[in-house]
């Protein structure tokens, strides 16, 4: 079976199993891709993993995309999962739309343990909550970070430029440059007596400091 036929068969198998829950299925740049109803997000991945023929047992990737302004607010986010089947050596991509005030998607932690941290990353970056995840906290940014950086309405430089986590005292003064530091004038009575050679030599600087 050639590669393209294999991919077409995979898409047909998925459509036959889930029917109208599959919103679209096509081959996108040589990658089989299915858009799914959020309801079956957990179910379809479990099916793909446990299927005796396909065996998508290699967890590849989970990430998100924000389509702010391009789509309705209720479905602005897309959660994208890439899976790989070692036995057939093909990949598949699933897309789940979500959005609204509190975007939520089912967690895959019971199917693929590898989604433990990566789902936390998606939550950190987009604010998409994964239900049934035991530790839905930020992964990369500090816990008291404000906003979700990869949303399109988040500025690159952050909401609070130059702010630090609690407990960090910001250094407002720079260290004095080296030259002034060596030649800082001292009161005359604190100066060391000059050696015979130095007395012959003219001071290098007017303020009497050493070079």
């Amino acid at each position, binding site marked *: 079976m050639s590669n393209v036929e294999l991919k077409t068969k995979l898409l047909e198998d998925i459509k036959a199993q889930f029917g109208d829950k599959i919103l679209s299925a096509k081959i*996108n740049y040589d990658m089989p891709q299915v858009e799914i109803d959020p309801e079956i997000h957990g179910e379809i991945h479990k099916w793909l993993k446990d299927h005796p023929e396909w065996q998508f047992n290699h967890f590849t*990737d989970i990430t998100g995309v924000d389509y702010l302004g*391009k789509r309705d607010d209720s479905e602005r986010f897309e959660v994208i999962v890439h899976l790989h089947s070692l036995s057939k050596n093909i990949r598949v991509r699933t897309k789940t739309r979500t959005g609204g005030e509190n975007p939520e998607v089912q967690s895959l932690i019971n199917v*693929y343990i590898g989604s433990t941290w990566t789902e936390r990353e998606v939550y950190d970056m987009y604010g998409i909550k994964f239900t049934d995840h*035991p530790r839905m906290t*930020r992964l*990369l940014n500090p816990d008291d970070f404000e906003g979700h950086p*990869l949303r399109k309405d988040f500025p*690159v430089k952050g909401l609070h430029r130059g702010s630090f986590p609690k407990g960090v005292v910001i250094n407002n003064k720079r260290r004095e440059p080296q030259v002034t530091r060596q030649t800082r004038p001292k009161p005359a009575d604190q100066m060391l007596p000059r050696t015979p050679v130095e007395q012959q030599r003219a001071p290098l600087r007017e303020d009497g400091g050493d070079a």
Partner: protein
Amino acid sequence: MLKHVIDQAIVEEYPGNKDLYDLNLGPAHPATHGIFDNRCKLDGERIIEVEGHIGYCHRSFEKLSEHYTYNQVITITDRMNYVSSMANNIGWVLTAEKLLGIEVPKLVQYVRVIIFEINRIIDHLVCNGILGVDAGAYTGFLYFFELREDIYQMFDKMVGARLTTNFGRVGGLDRPLYPDFQKDVLAWLEPVRKTMKEFHILLTRNRIFIDRCKDVSAISAERALEYGFSGPNLRATGVKYDLRKDEPYSSYEDFDFDVPVGSTGDIYDRYMVRMIEMEQSVRIIEQAAKNLPDGPHHADVPEIYLPEKKDVYSNMEAMIRHFKIIMHGICPPEGEVYQAVEAPNGELGFYCVSDGGPNPYRLHFRSPCLYFYQSVEELLKDGLIADAILTLSSLNAIAGELER
């Protein structure tokens, strides 16, 4: 809340040991490489519970790349896995070329293979050298770094930089090869072979090293796949998965090489897989460098690849193209593409969404490190604290790539 639950569970499980010792293995621990925070609970020397924290080197590559043009993103990929930066450059350039549908000449593909394999060697050199340092064998590191220094000098001649190479452009190489490239590459292989032999004598059959590494932090193939392992760490568990064989890119199908696999997935297997991979890389480089074809150093895509400088000054069309590429950037068609390459650490994937504009609408780096590093909570558990250090360095997680 969670901390409280864990504390409670530990007290129930180890009623005699209520005074577990808390150790923060990181983010600035003297014995670890890279800035990862592993909060361990210790019962004597034994690790009872680990909680991994990352994000100490999160530099927001993905956000930045949404504001960069396709060629500017190459500078970001330099800084991802900085031990083998050219491998990332090539991975991204291949992704952009897939999106644009460009076929590059054979010479470019072969040069990319050579550079890729050189980077694999120098990455594995650092990993295994540091593994030796952590096991108490500092000498190997000094031997290995001498090789890196040699190859840095070649990179310097080739692209003008040592570490952040910014190699390649969308559509070809950034400049023609320098005249002695072939000779330099072949001459470098001899010291590699010699040093590998010395390193084998130093470590591979070293009783202390074997005792430290055998059966430590082993993981089963099934579990590793579920975590999303790839690269040498996955092959050490016995899964023969190598993108160079399974999804050949850049003419990898032309070369004859073997993929080493381990059996138990412990530290020693990871070490051996890396050592043998280096030998195979030497084979690939030799085949590619000896059969280096002639031809142009870029594809014939005038609207994507910058024209030569002398044409820009003398030819009006070339000047207009130069202006358009610099000012407007490259605009690929709408679409989304996933391209994975077998980077030294594993499957380095680029998921790029284009909306037809000059910047990627969304660019996600599938870093191999993140997927295998999340297993430390499982790997370190019930091990000794001294083994934890070896485990962390044998996984070879690179902070810049892990946290992006």
